[in-house]
């Protein structure tokens, strides 16, 4: 069973939607971290200002089997692209306790 890690960077406003999308794909576990600063070409510098909810991004990752992973990526691609998000896939060698 080959595992992959899918990391997604998304504006906090869409976090809830993203999680619903992930669950819709059959993902049962995820972890979200706060991004306190970032930069990209689409929306420039993001400084995670507390007063301004639209400047805050999160990093969500999920560990899944390679097969499911491919489906997830395909299904999420338009969702993420439309919202200016980022998705990164890396290989996982070994895992314990993941859902």
């Amino acid at each position, binding site marked *: 069973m080959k595992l992959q890690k899918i990391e997604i960077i998304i*504006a906090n*406003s*869409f976090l809830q939607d993203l999680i619903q999308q992930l669950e819709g794909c059959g993902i049962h576990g995820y972890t979200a971290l706060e991004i*306190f600063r970032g930069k990209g070409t689409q*929306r*420039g510098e993001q*400084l*995670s*200002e*507390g*007063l*301004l*909810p*639209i*400047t*805050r991004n999160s990093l969500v990752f999920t560990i899944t089997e390679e097969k499911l992973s491919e489906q997830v990526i395909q299904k999420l691609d338009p969702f993420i692209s*439309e*919202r*200016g998000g980022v998705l990164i896939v890396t290989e996982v060698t070994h895992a314990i306790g993941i859902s």
Partner: protein
Amino acid sequence: MSLSTILENFAHPATLFFFLGMLAVIVKSDLEIPPQIAKFLSIYLLFDIGIKGGEELFHSGFNSQVLTVILVCVSASFLVPFAMYYILNRKLSVYDAGAVAATYGSISAVTFATATAFLEGQNEPFGGYMVAGMALMESPAIIAGLILIRLNNKTDESETRSGNFNHILRESFFNGSVLLLVGSLVIGYVAGETGEKELKPFVNEIFFGMLSLYMLDMGLLAGRRIRELRKAGAFVVSFAALFPPAIAVLGIALSYALGYSAGDALLQTILLASASYIAVPAAMRMAVPQANMSILLPMALGVTFTFNIALGIPLYYFIIQIFW
């Protein structure tokens, strides 16, 4: 007299801390308010404004003046986006024009709070029911923005997102800021004298200090946005600079026609002439992921907010004093 009124505005710590924040950006200081603290200041402010407004409503009751204010606020926040959309759409995409129009239909709670502080400094009375008006100005603006985008968007993309409409509608009524403001207003009203007695020191006495820290953060935020103005283009910058004085003239005239007191007139004018940079941009970002929010903050924060804080409040008041 005019100059002194304007200068008196600068004797308020809150206004001065706003400029300190801007200065920090200019000199590239690492001064910053941690994000969760900024959020706490914002929670405090909405709590404070809501409670105070509710207490005032408790004393005044729902008289005809209150109903007039509510009617003006709700209609204006719904109609202003329509008027602005067609100006904005000349240069901006449907999505951007809709998002910006909604933003300008709504209000900035801290501009309102600064205006109340200014009035207190001038010993000019005002009605607490103005808060009730303010609390009702976010939802209609968001709904107006959504309708505008719907009407004007010819691509079928909007179709695919139509299931989302209810979701956004609910968001317009129940997003965190609106719920906290309306909730505090209702609680201030319901808790009546018990609440007033218990909350007085928290709501009235530390208010100016908390507002000063909030404005320090606003200065930092606005300062950063001003640096981004070059990218935003002359059209949007002009719009953001001309909107407050233009709409203020209308606001003052309307207040005069409706027989508002001088204090209420200033607050009504500020509500009309200010723009939202928290709740409405957040809701529009969710509703219209295609909108380019990077022009919204430089406009609403960098230009309009700065104008209102630095010049608008004393200027509008100066004009009001001439006519009242």
